[in-house]
């Protein structure tokens, strides 16, 4: 067992105790903060409060897709199915939060732009991202847990998908652009958001980030348990017992 794996396992036991309370309180703080603490935005009104889910969600999704990419490389390199479970868990979380971004974006877009959906560059690239990783999950679920070759295929597809993202971004930006430029990142010294809003947004980053991490761990754990169950079943079939 590699040092990396054992370190991760130790971290894992730690997270199991610490993460649920963090997730619970941060998400609660995020909800209360975005509804009560954050001021009503003057031009856009209450619908702007979707920002606190919308923006952290897409960042969480990107983080998850990064994990899918790295875990898939390890699957191809080490042939270790534990990393297949990690990749599947992270992909599920990524798809969930990309979907959340698209859904909140649609709700936000209707009153502000007058449409739920438009083929704007960032909307399109987010949708393509959603489709790539939904296809990944679908392809992986078509074969059984222990199918090493299917895990490799899915990993190759995940690598293709990750390397496709820059090209997708680039091509759709050439194609068209409507989405507002990020407001928070405009300069770290003087952010354009009022301080209360920024505070709530920071809490939302923590809440969504912790939630994504926790869900990812739960999914990975479930995938891994399914694999172990299948292994045990195969061993029983061979009369070796557990």
């Amino acid at each position: 067992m590699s040092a990396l794996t054992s370190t991760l396992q130790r971290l894992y036991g730690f997270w199991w105790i610490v993460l649920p309370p963090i997730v619970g309180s941060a998400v609660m703080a995020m909800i209360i903060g975005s509804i009560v603490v954050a001021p009503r935005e003057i031009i856009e009104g209450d619908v702007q409060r979707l920002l606190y889910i919308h923006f952290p969600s897409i960042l969480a999704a990107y983080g998850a897709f990064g994990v899918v990419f790295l875990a898939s490389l390890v699957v191809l390199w080490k042939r270790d199915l534990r990393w297949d479970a990690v990749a599947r868990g992270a992909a599920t979380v990524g798809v969930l939060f990309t979907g959340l971004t698209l859904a909140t974006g649609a709700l936000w877009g209707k009153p502000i732009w007058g449409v739920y959906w438009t083929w704007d560059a960032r909307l399109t690239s987010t949708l393509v991202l959603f489709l790539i990783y939904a296809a990944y999950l679908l392809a992986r679920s078509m074969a059984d847990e222990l199918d090493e070759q299917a895990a490799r295929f899915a990993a190759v597809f995940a690598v293709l998908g990750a390397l496709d993202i820059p090209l997708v971004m680039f091509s759709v930006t050439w194609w068209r652009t409507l989405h507002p430029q990020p407001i928070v990142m405009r300069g770290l010294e003087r952010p354009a958001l009022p301080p209360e809003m920024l505070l709530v947004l920071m809490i939302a980053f923590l809440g969504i980030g912790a939630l994504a991490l926790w869900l990812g761990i739960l999914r990975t754990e479930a995938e891994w348990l399914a694999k172990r169950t299948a292994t045990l079943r195969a061993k029983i079939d061979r009369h070796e017992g557990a």
Partner: protein
Amino acid sequence: MTAILEAPILQTEALTKRYGGLDVVRQVAIALPAGSRTALVGANGAGKTTLLAMLSTLVTPTEGDATIVGHSLKARPAALRRAIGVLAHAPMLYEEMTPLENLGFFARLYGVARPEPRIEELLRAVGVWNRRHEATSVLSRGYHQRLALARALLHRPAILLADEPETGLDPEGIELLDELALRAPGLTVLAATHRVDRVETWATGLVRLDHGRVVEDTASVIGTPQGQVQA
């Protein structure tokens, strides 16, 4: 004919294949002398097919390595593939092509020098010469197997790896199989088989697998990879 003890032509070291925590082939170490004919026996799921698939480079071992005619599985798979002929469950033939075209194609893949006479010789030997211009799909199961045998031997491999070679063959076909492959002089054979009744008619040794492990081995010589025999 007595088997001469010499450097093993096929040697495996701790060869293991693990699928999701299950050792399908576990720590297999065998060393087959050149010209020997080994029957690989064991129950269904004992790991015979996986072992053959690893030796033919189709499946990557989880652990261990094998050396065939001096080429390591890990280091020189392409050179190793040139030295082996494989007779698998499926005949591995293109159904829409004729026997002649099938062998012609594989002769090009293997870079067989002067392929025409070699193809004719083999097609005549397996009794398919008269039907060489028909589509392979119209030929019977037995003819498929005969053609598969010709395909496996086309590039004059040093070792034949066979998985249940008797399947689908009539008595006449089995005679051909014995003559051309299992009892062919100079050819080293490793064949997984269920036909335990036939083993002593052709094999010089036997390797028995159980749950992926070697439990009986009368085929191996004790030798080093460099080829020094220590009797």
